[in-house]
């Protein structure tokens, strides 16, 4: 039998495959559970033993996006027959729709705050990382450590000072306040990650651009930035995931106008108990933007576009 040092054996490949598939199953099963629950009816969602096979229902999604009240005989008579399919679903549960829920607004808040803070974080992070990577900054190492120290404590440890600060500045429950806060928290991570990526781009490229008639900023923009795209994309994904999923600060600092989806979703209460299908539907939709963002940037996550152009 042939034997190669670099090529793994058949058995090794099988073992690796089983491990990967096993890990994938573990990570994906809660996701499947949430998505499935979103399409269950109320009783099915809390059935024991859990129902793996069930009749799909849009009850959760209808309940997520609407406010309803328990229908009395009078109301049903004055309202007449259900006008739409979602009216019908509400009637089937013995309720009538009284108006849209706040989920849409909360979701929009999450988008504004999540993407806003990610964009700001990339802007400041790239500039700072470039400076740390290329210029002689006094006390560089101490500064980098100091920046990182903001991530060394749990949010709850700084929550009270931040709450007081925000109250005095009038930033409580505002989009701007949350964008600034998430940017501040994420900036340390993005500066560190981006500095690593920029360090890897040889300085010769910028020197060549300077000689070719460009200014330092133009060289940064035309030569460094395109090569750092991979790093910027992956850092942006990390920042977005944090800002998108953040719960503790959102619970403490937002309550109405700027409340994001994470603190809102668990408060969805159905008629006579927690409305699990609606909660699951809210969580399912909540997953979509990060998933789309990650898939769009996936190309950039595959490294390797800059290899081999400089002889070392």
């Amino acid at each position: 039998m042939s034997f190669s040092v670099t090529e793994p054996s058949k058995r090794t490949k099988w073992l690796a495959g089983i491990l990967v598939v096993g890990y994938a199953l573990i990570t994906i099963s809660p996701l499947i559970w949430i998505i499935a629950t979103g399409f269950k009816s109320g009783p099915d969602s809390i059935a024991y033993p859990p129902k793996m096979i069930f009749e799909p229902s849009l009850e959760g999604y209808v309940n997520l996006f609407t406010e309803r009240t328990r229908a009395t005989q009078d109301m049903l008579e004055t309202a007449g027959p259900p006008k739409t399919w979602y009216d019908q679903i509400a009637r089937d549960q013995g309720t009538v729709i009284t108006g849209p829920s706040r989920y849409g607004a909360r979701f929009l808040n999450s988008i504004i705050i999540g993407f806003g803070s990610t964009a700001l974080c990339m802007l400041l992070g790239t500039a700072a990382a470039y400076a740390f990577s290329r210029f002689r900054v006094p006390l560089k190492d101490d500064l980098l450590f100091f920046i990182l120290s903001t991530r060394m404590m749990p949010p709850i440890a700084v929550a009270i000072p931040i709450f007081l600060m925000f109250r005095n500045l009038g930033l409580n429950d505002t989009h701007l306040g949350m964008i600034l806060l998430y940017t501040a928290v994420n900036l340390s991570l993005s500066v560190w990650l981006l500095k690593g990526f920029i360090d890897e781009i040889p300085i010769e490229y910028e020197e060549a651009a300077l000689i070719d008639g460009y200014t330092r900023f133009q060289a940064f923009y035309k030569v460094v930035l395109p090569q750092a795209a991979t790093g910027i994309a992956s850092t942006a994904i990390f920042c977005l995931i944090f800002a998108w999923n953040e719960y503790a600060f959102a619970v403490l600092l937002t309550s109405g106008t700027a409340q994001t989806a994470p603190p809102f979703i668990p408060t969805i209460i159905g008629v006579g108990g927690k409305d699990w299908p609606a909660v699951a539907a809210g969580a399912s939709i909540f997953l979509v933007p990060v998933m789309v963002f990650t898939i769009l940037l996936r190309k950039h996550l595959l490294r390797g576009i800059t290899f081999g152009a400089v002889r070392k």
Partner: protein
Amino acid sequence: MAEVTLKGVSKSFGADTALDNVTMTIPDGSFVVLLGPTGAGKTTTLRLVSGLDTQDSGCISIGARDMMGLTPAQRDVAMVFQQYSLYPHLTVRQNLEFPLKSPILKTPDDEIARKVGEIAEVLQISHKLDNKATMLSGGEMQRVSIGRALVRNPSVYLMDEPLSSLDAKLRADLRIELKSIQSDRGATLLYVTHDQIEAMTMATHVGVLDKGRVVQFGTPRQIYEDPVSIYAASRLGQPRINVLPAAVFGGAPTTAQSIGLRPEQIVQGEGEESLVQRVEHLGDQTRLHLSFKSHDIVTVTDAHTNLKSGDIIRIRPKNPFYFDATGARLA
């Protein structure tokens, strides 16, 4: 094109002195080659002229214009780096266009296309123009890198061992090509190399650098035929100059410490006996490794010689160089 002058230029990196009071004039339209081993200050000289680094003291001017405080872009220089630093996210064509599209030049599109086409032709990379820069072989990358400098018409071209990574055939081709481009355009070129063939064939002037100092500046023939020191004499000549104690041959001046003999300064068939150690047939020439009074001598003889190792041959010096104890040439 312009004349470049360095006056009393010094540069240190921490405790290391890279350049020590260098004064040199690169005449307009000349091809100046800087020779010296690693660490002699060749690359530092280029970087100071280009403006990528700034000298600690002294004055650099290009075309009588003082360069102090000017950025590389303002200095109007083109440079080929030792590492072929092509922009990896661009195609070959975009790499060549890059300097022409700079905010300083802002070349019209049709002229860009013409110049890029011309240079690609000269450097034999026309068929690769639309390839990604990273999809090239090392030799092709270096040609594009040279091309990126040649598409421009700057005050001075700076080249840092541009041919060192190429194979012998291509190196010979490009040597001729570079030389003819330079003389056609009347370009001023400052060129760093280790390779003495490049120095001998292309240079109008050679600057010999030693530990950050210019020890000799002159035409390649001057450096070869009239070196100021053992160090300068060793830079040029293949095989290298033989340096022996002055006393091994008679007739040395009293102050001479050593005698320097190039192959053509050794007359064969007359004088004192020496033992042939080894005969190397290189095709166009044959090298003799001789042992003379326990000193090794390498010289050249007839390509079709019948000498073999163990033979005895008589040799005598003819117009040799004499050097004093510090290695400086005695007049």
